[in-house]
């Protein structure tokens, strides 16, 4: 009786029912045996409760149908889990307790809902709101569903429902950029090409040639000259942007969307923001995740469904994979693509890779995603805490030196600060690519 009944078809008597039955009957017998009418009075409530419980015992097993609202969510968003329970006559209350899982916040708090059975409806619905506190793949449930009769005399369950895996894509950090792309090469888009062609960006006024459209004739200058002049424009092209994510390590404590961010949190959110921004601009965007447990390559494409694909790939990232030395040093990136490498720059490997890519002629910008304040997994009572903090400060100094050397090698490194983070550096890069240079092929 103390143990919950696991048989889903059975209503098991509880300790409360046994207590009422045993003590009520015993009180009656002792009262009669000892000629004590006061014991009759004392035993009355237990006897009434016991008889009431027996008469209102439910028969038949409840049926539980559990559904979840959405299986794909953005970080910080919530969905609803519904438990529709059909109960037999006599069932009085229902309870649902969801198993606590990391990064899943429940409302009500702690994931427990109790409710009286709705006798007017064929099924009683219990709702649990679950909010995803961090990107990744998180398990919701399983939940234990149980039911009780009057006086808590008989209980059914708890029976476990199935668990769901929810894909939580990173919440893209706020980002906006106005700088032009260094060298757009696609067919259509919003970036100004270096070559003249059909577009909206003014290039020059030149004499009319066979094949020019009449609407291109520039009448003010034509009236002042002997012949017809037309307005020449630059072609509108799209760019290829490759976002490279360094998932070699995850430093710092992550407290989800509402708390402090780890280095991988900041990296993934910055990558999501860059992907989303460039896809919305109409650029072709690709994604490469390096040194993750499962390396991911998403070929460059455009469109909202492609963005969804990239965000799903970001949600699957697990830090700490080994570096594959066999990887093509150019990472199969097309010439002319703009490479945005998001990395906390804690290990030297991504810096070496950035230098290597830049030397092979690619336009690359390193986005430093190490949060300004990193919270470590250190127990305040741990005597080694000071040593850990000292070691981290030394590593930060070494990191600064590494970043300076990378910058001297011609790789721009820019701090991730959200909107406008990349504007200045992209303008500089655009100026630089127009200048003559040497490249190692």
């Amino acid at each position: 009786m103390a143990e919950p009944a696991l048989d889903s078809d059975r209503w098991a008597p509880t300790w409360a029912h046994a207590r009422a039955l045993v003590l009520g009957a015993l009180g009656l017998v002792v009262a009669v045996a000892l000629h004590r009418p006061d014991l009759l009075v004392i035993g009355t409530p237990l006897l009434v409760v016991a008889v009431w419980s027996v008469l209102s015992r439910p028969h038949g097993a409840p049926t539980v149908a559990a559904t979840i609202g959405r299986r794909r969510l953005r970080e910080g968003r919530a969905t609803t889990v519904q438990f529709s329970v059909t109960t037999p006559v006599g069932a009085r209350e229902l309870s649902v307790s969801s198993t606590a899982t990391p990064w899943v916040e429940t409302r009500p708090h702690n994931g427990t809902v109790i409710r009286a059975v709705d006798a007017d409806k064929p099924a009683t619905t219990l709702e649990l709101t679950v909010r995803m506190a961090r990107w990744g793949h998180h398990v919701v449930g399983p939940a234990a569903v149980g039911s009780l009769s009057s006086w808590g005399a008989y209980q059914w369950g708890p029976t476990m429902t199935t668990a769901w895996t929810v894909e939580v894509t990173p919440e893209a950090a706020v980002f906006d950029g106005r700088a032009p792309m260094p060298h757009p090469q696609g067919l259509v888009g919003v970036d100004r090409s270096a070559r003249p062609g059909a577009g909206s960006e003014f290039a020059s006024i030149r004499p009319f040639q066979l094949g020019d459209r009449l609407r291109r004739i520039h009448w003010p200058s034509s009236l002042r000259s002997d012949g017809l002049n037309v307005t020449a424009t630059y072609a509108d092209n799209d760019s290829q942007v490759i976002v490279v994510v360094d998932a070699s390590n995850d430093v710092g404590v992550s407290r989800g969307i509402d708390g402090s961010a780890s280095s991988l949190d900041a990296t993934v959110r910055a990558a999501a923001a860059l992907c989303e921004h460039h896809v919305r601009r109409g650029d072709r965007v690709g994604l490469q995740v390096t040194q993750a447990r499962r390396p991911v390559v998403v070929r460059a494409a455009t469109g909202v469904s492609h963005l969804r694909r990239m965000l799903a790939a970001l949600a699957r990232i697990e830090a700490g994979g080994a570096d594959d030395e066999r990887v093509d040093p150019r990472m199969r990136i097309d010439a002319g693509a703009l490479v945005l490498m998001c990395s906390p720059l804690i290990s030297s490997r991504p810096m070496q890779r950035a230098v290597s890519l830049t030397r092979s002629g690619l336009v690359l910008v390193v986005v430093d995603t190490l949060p300004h304040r990193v919270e470590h997994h250190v127990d305040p009572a741990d005597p080694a805490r000071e040593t850990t903090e000292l070691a981290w400060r030394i590593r930060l100094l070494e990191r600064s030196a590494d970043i300076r050397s990378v910058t001297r090698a011609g790789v721009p490194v820019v701090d991730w600060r959200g909107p406008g983070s990349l504007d200045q550096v992209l303008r500089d890069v655009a100026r630089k690519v127009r200048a003559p240079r040497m490249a190692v092929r």
Partner: protein
Amino acid sequence: MRLPAAYVDVSEFLERIGTSGLVVRGTLVLSVAVSSLTASALGGYSTWLLVGLVLLGCVAAVVPDSSAPLVVIAAMCAQWVIVVRPVSVTWSVVPALCVLVVHVAAARAASLPDHAPYDAVLMQHWLGQTGVVALVTFLIWTVVVTLDADPAPAGVGVTALAFVGAAVVTAVLAWRLDS
């Protein structure tokens, strides 16, 4: 500085049962104390007995889904039988109501899942049921007191049969109304 393990255990237990669970369990312990004090007032006062019963009540409050509440109610009845001299039918309604409250509080505490939030509808439902049984108990007590005061009383067996019949009829009626 690390907190003592006992303190951590108690705080975790309190967090697990929540405010509503704490109120229910507190009512259980309070009823045990009231019953014991009533018996002491009518019989002999014993601090050790009072403390022992309250401690037993605390155990029942911590593990309501066990035999502990049964032991508590049995101990309350035993104290009444042993201590109260002469037999008092008039005051028997007090331990009867205390027994009811202990039983209902233990049943409610056992049925509440961990971290269960307060639900007003369910609380009203439990209070309503308890009120009905308390009313029945009061009616039975009235009958018993009347029969006890009669100069030519019926035998206890007759009283018991009358009482059982009344209880069964009331329970059936209550069940019908309830469903």
